[in-house]
């Protein structure tokens, strides 16, 4: 499994990209991680609890996260949440497997997770926000 950095994928090159470094590193962690996802999905299919995998906990070489994304593919749902910076929630081509990427307002990644669940918790409207919204709407209609 050869992993090449996305910078070699034909995007416009900057001066840094012009440095002839090839990222052909393979940590060996991609396949076990995908098997972990497979096991978690089987558990979910059997009616058991969901699983969250923190991608920052594993050493991955440049290009390996992209490799994981490639294997999982893109499914039917993609949502963007605007809270303390954007969060992208992408269902993969395997229903029940979601890729969640939290960024701050500077677009830096502050957390990256694979969630194996029916629907990621963050997509649901939260009770405190619902109560707050109900009050706001009531006040809005009074005026």
């Amino acid at each position, binding site marked *: 499994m050869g992993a090449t950095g996305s910078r070699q994928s034909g995007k416009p090159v900057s001066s840094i990209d012009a440095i002839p470094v090839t990222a052909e590193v393979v940590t060996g962690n991609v396949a076990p991680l995908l098997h972990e996802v497979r096991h978690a999905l089987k558990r979910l299919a059997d009616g058991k609890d969901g699983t969250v995998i923190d991608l920052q906990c594993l050493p991955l070489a440049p290009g390996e996260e992209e490799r994981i994304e490639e294997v999982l593919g893109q499914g039917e749902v993609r949502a963007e*949440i605007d809270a*303390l910076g954007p969060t992208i929630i992408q269902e993969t081509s395997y229903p029940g497997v979601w890729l969640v990427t939290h960024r701050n307002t500077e677009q830096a990644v502050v957390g990256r997770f694979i969630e194996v669940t029916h629907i990621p918790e963050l997509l649901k409207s939260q009770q405190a*926000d619902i109560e707050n919204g109900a009050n706001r709407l009531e006040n809005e209609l009074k005026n």
Partner: protein
Amino acid sequence: MRNDQFLGEYLRMQGVSRRGFLKFCSATASLMALPPSAVGQVAEALATARRPSVIWLSFQECTGCTESLTRSHAPTVESLIFDAISLDYHHTLQAASGYGAEEARMAAMEENAGKYLLVVDGSIPLGNPGFSTIAGISNLDMLKETAENAFAIIAVGTCAAFGGLPRANPNPTGAVSVSDIITDKPIINVSGCPPIPVVITGVLAHFLTFGTIPELDALGRPAAFFGQNIHDRCYRRPFYERGQFAETFDDEGARKGWCLYKLGCKGPTTYNACATLKWNGGTSFPIQSGHGCLGCSEPNFWDKGGFYDPLSAGMWGSRDALLGAAAAGAALGVGSALAARSRKKKAQAAEEV
């Protein structure tokens, strides 16, 4: 944020939704190296956390540790956690100076006796009290006075944790670490030159969340961040296993991203979280940028031989010792060490010519 306010209430008043708060907790749990399943507990605890008083003392230091933390772009998780503490004294950041600043420190110590966190960056000179003073008070006296009623001490940076650069041979100021002086308080060593900002805030987040100090390793460092060495978490590790090393910084091996062991990488003996948390908002870390680890989070890293000598060359003093080690089975590393010594001799010979 008022000192009597809960963190959850403060964030709500800042316009942060519950959804945003859960995202914040998710990133916080991740940076504390807690399992994702702990996010609910973290959210519950952080929502009702109160703002702790923090006194930050800077002694023999370069301000790199403060820079590391404050250069994080806002609003990051780091900055939100930094907002969630009451930083009552930090002579680099505070507006007050002279007597006003010292009064703020004394007031914080009195009002929060037994509850405040003391953060120290920089080593303490024992050679002569005049080597480093603040408001005419020696570093030693200020440390002892401020530590007396602290809940715990966070020694930020390798200088505060182990003496660091000021302690390097010949240690002209008689520099020592916080733990060389204070022996009756919990001390959390957050080493690194500088430490990774999210490790500093990870420790603060742990205190905010649980009200306790985290589990520590044998050198007093939080095990969640210093429990594994750089080498074991390095994405270039497979090259080491296969014996594929860069021999110089511009050879084919370097261009292919091979292991930097022969170029002096100290990853195998350095415990830190650089390989997973990374730097500059998770962009990269030294090895990913093509330079070996310097081992900056370890005691006496400055005096452990050349930065560009393989570990085995620094650990073993002579060629005989190297050959002895080779006989004991350390052939791979020793071969690298001999090659490095050979390169060094050639370079010295070239200089002499």
